[in-house]
């Protein structure tokens, strides 16, 4: 009870997670029972995103700074931003909707993780008082969201190769959905590049050099290289469709570790210890 009073964002956070849970159940129910569930999934996503936006706002008012520092804040803001990006994708690209089968369970995993973290606040370092932080974080979140949409679709396509997913065979052909997967990856590459550029501009004035090979920069660059390599590999070699989808998973795992692992396992300046 006392933690709820101290952290008024928690009920809204758990409400948002309940929304994602509802959406995930609806998506999987639609596949198992062969029922039309797009509207239900969309509504659940929309409600979850609104609740999470409220949670972020309340926390912002309490802490006096945006969700940029602690792992709790970063998971909270990503639960919101990834949900928002997927909501837009779900709305504007119907062909990508089956990806909800994979994307929404990923949200739930993030939700389980955030539930184990203390909602403590911190102090925003002076170097974070920069418009470039917003640009860097903003395009980074779009990158991860679009990459997750590609992973969702690739995961669904891999799922339908497994026994027991007969209803998925009524989706469009592998080749059609594969084109969409790689379109998402291409767009993700653009936003990842913009994230690196904005981060370099921010770093130049925040820490005196645009690139210092700190752990976060190093792993972000390796993710960018692997993303570029996967786009090149698909063009150059006859990579089987499933091989390409596994590459998509590989890039996402690298990006995921860069976003949620590296900043909290190293003493880099991005962690805020300055």
């Amino acid at each position, binding site marked *: 009870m006392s933690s709820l009073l101290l952290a008024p964002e928690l009920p809204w956070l758990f409400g948002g997670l309940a929304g994602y849970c509802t959406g995930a159940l609806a998506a999987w129910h*639609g596949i198992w029972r062969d029922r039309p569930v797009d*509207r239900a999934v969309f509504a659940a996503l929309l409600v979850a995103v609104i609740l999470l936006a409220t949670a972020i706002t309340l926390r912002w008012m309490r802490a006096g700074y945006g969700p940029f520092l602690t792992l709790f804040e970063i998971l909270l803001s990503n639960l919101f931003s990834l949900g928002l990006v997927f909501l837009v994708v779900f709305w504007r690209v119907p062909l990508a909707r089956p990806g909800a089968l994979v994307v929404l369970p990923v949200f739930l995993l993030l939700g389980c993780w955030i539930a184990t973290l203390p909602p403590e606040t911190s102090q925003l370092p002076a170097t974070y008082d920069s418009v470039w932080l917003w640009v860097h974080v903003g395009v980074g979140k779009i990158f991860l969201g679009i990459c997750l949409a590609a992973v969702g679709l690739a995961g669904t396509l891999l799922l339908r190769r497994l026994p027991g997913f007969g209803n998925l065979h009524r989706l469009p052909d592998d080749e059609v959905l594969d084109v969409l997967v790689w379109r998402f990856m291409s767009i993700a590459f653009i936003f990842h590049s913009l994230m690196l550029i904005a981060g370099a501009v921010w770093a130049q004035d925040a*820490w005196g050099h645009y690139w210092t090979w700190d752990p976060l920069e190093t792993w972000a660059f390796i993710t960018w290289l692997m993303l570029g390599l996967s786009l090149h590999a698909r*063009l150059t070699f006859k990579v089987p469709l499933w091989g390409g989808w596994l590459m998509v998973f590989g890039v996402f795992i690298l990006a995921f570790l860069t976003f949620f692992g590296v900043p909290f396992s190293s003493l880099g300046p991005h962690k805020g210890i300055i």
Partner: protein
Amino acid sequence: MRESAMKIICRLASLRLTLPGLLALAVGVLVSYRDVTASTAWMAVPLLCLAVNLLAALIVNTRIRSRPALLVFHLCLLAVVLLATYGHLSSLQARVEITEGQAFNAADVEMVREGPWHPRQRLDSVVFVQGPLRVDYAPGLKRQHTASQLGIRDAVAGEVLTTIGDNTPHIQAGYRFYTTSNKGYSAILTWLGSDGVRQTGAINFPSYPANDWNQTNQWTGPAGKHFRLELDLPRPQSFDRHWAFDATPAVAALTIMADDQRVRLEPGEVLQLENGRLQFEEVRLWMGYRITYEPLLPWLLFAALVGVLALAWHFLASFNSLPLPEGYGHRERKENSDVITAART
């Protein structure tokens, strides 16, 4: 001859070489991440191979040359590599400590890394004077905003004060001066030699408040005698509340130790020595600056941005030329509103 040269260029331009090049670069990045001293070769070799591969592709790959946006992207990629390499060779990373009232002196600069093409004499053209400074701390000794005033000579307005700090550097002659967390107190000493020589200088004590427990330093006097100096500051205040590092303490004394002697001086007091007198004038603040010189930084940013925009243009054109199958685009979403089940399409 020309044919064999083209054959070689065609082989060098192969996309099949790009992939091992990218993998080698990733390995090079990982190696230099683990061992900074090994970074140059591990990064330079794959980058050189990739640059040659890209240059060859730009000459012979019709797929790239026939698509202007893709061509611009790859040209920009090459430009970024070249600009970053030139920047690395001509760059400077250095640091300097300047006391309030003191003018910047290139001779005081401590080099961290200097590229072989860096025009060192250029640093002599930098002129500014350190003014007052202030660093705010939140409770728990968490550093907040830094404001450092510099007096800069302006051709029109004379000497003007400018404030830098945090994300705002002072830029002069292409050098960027950044405030750092390194700052502290200086003891201003005047040497009055028996030969009539008078010299005033500053002794900087270790960074404060990080080293508030150890405000000592060594100094060799004009007569060659070694002294150990200790700045006696009031007991550190509680750092559990807001605090600012912005003024010298009202009560500060300097203890000078040499041989078996130990003399405590208040500001204005004089110590009589063999060849002259040493006067402790006052305590001031000093600020540590990080200096960087990257002459082509704006061009690097420009090339990177143009490259990304060109690639976005290329992708957009590709998507438009290869539309998704009819019945699945967003315009048809009403007819295909349930794609998760997808049975009705």
